[in-house]
């Protein structure tokens, strides 16, 4: 099944953080504890799917027919920024509980590389609308998985004897390298 294949590839085989280096800023900054990672992961999932739902029709029914493809970068990033702003307003007003939990991550999401990358790739991969949504969900779940893994590793490392010259961010990247190597084993998953 084509859609299952997209999910498997995006979550495991070609993980957006571990194999494609995208969304690293939030990966380093937002994995201080597992709860923070989960919050960020879900916020990213929500915004990515909504951004896909907004940008895919915008490209295929407005930009392409009018030969305005060169405005893709501007239009997509402004749509994402506006979406995030709207979501923030709506949550603040109507679901304060959720806003308290998720609200702080929202401004950071506008510059999250993963979201813009997904919206661009939906177009360049010639995906249908359904495929785009599935791709968006898959990439976000892969993001969530990598975040949770690193958060777990980080909490362990706080009590481990890390060599002095590797303390801080260097050891995080080495840990990521090891996690990535493990993930490369998934490449045999897709027949």
């Amino acid at each position, binding site marked *: 099944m*084509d859609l299952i294949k997209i999910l498997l*590839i995006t979550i495991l*085989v*070609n993980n957006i953080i571990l194999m*494609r280096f995208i969304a690293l800023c939030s990966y380093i900054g937002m994995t201080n504890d597992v709860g923070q990672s989960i919050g960020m992961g879900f916020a990213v999932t929500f915004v990515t799917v909504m951004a896909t739902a907004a940008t895919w029709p915008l490209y295929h029914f407005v930009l392409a027919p009018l030969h305005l493809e*060169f*405005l893709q970068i*501007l239009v997509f990033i*402004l749509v994402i920024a506006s979406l995030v702003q709207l979501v923030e307003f709506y949550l603040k007003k109507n679901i304060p509980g959720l806003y308290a939990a998720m609200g702080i991550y929202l401004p950071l999401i506008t510059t999250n590389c993963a979201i813009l990358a997904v919206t661009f*790739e939906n177009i*360049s*991969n*010639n*995906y249908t609308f359904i495929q785009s949504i599935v791709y968006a969900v898959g990439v976000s779940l892969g993001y969530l998985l990598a975040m949770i893994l690193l958060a777990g590793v980080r909490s362990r490392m706080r009590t481990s004897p890390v060599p002095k010259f590797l303390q801080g961010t260097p050891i995080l990247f080495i840990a990521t390298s090891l996690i990535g190597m493990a993930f490369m084993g998934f*490449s*045999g998953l*897709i*027949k």
Partner: protein
Amino acid sequence: MKGNMKLGLVLAMFAAVGCASLAVVYSITESAIAAQSQKALNASLQEIFPDAVSFEDITATLSSNVQGVKFEQAFLVKSAQASLGVAVKATGSSYGGPAKLLVGVALNRSIAGVRVLELNDTAGLGMNAKNAAYYVKKAEKITFPGQFGGKFLTDPFEVKKDVVAITASTITSRSLTVIIKAAADAAATWLETSTTTAATPAEQAASASGAAGTTGGK
């Protein structure tokens, strides 16, 4: 509300200036961008059909019925005397992003050649499909796209059985094979149904007997 109106106006002005400047830059670079892809296409077309002299655009009459594979352009390739075959520029998705291939089909329904125009897979693994120095059959020095030359469309196309895959890049190999088969099938169908290149009875008999045909490929 007046404050918000002013903000909105400032925003709109910046947006308008931004879009206008982009439109200017686009109009300057548009022709250069088109020229670049045309250059690459012509070079590859000439490689697949060395005797080719003209390329008639038949894009409108060719469409893909394979999900995920789109045909950007299609050409009827002609030498000075006769038609040589059909070339299709097809796009589809591969492991790390979209892939663009040029597939040429000769009159005898065999593949004249395959060229990888664009590929975004892992360097050292899937990207070797585009690497002219990477051979899937080391003894004969055959590259991944090169192995399709001369292959008849009635032959099986299963990766790892009939098609040699790139080491540790089965997904890329499969994705590209799907695109190649879709393009080649569509080209062959076009050749069969088009009146200007309808196969002579001798050619039809040859292609019907498939792999055992006496017409040689490249």
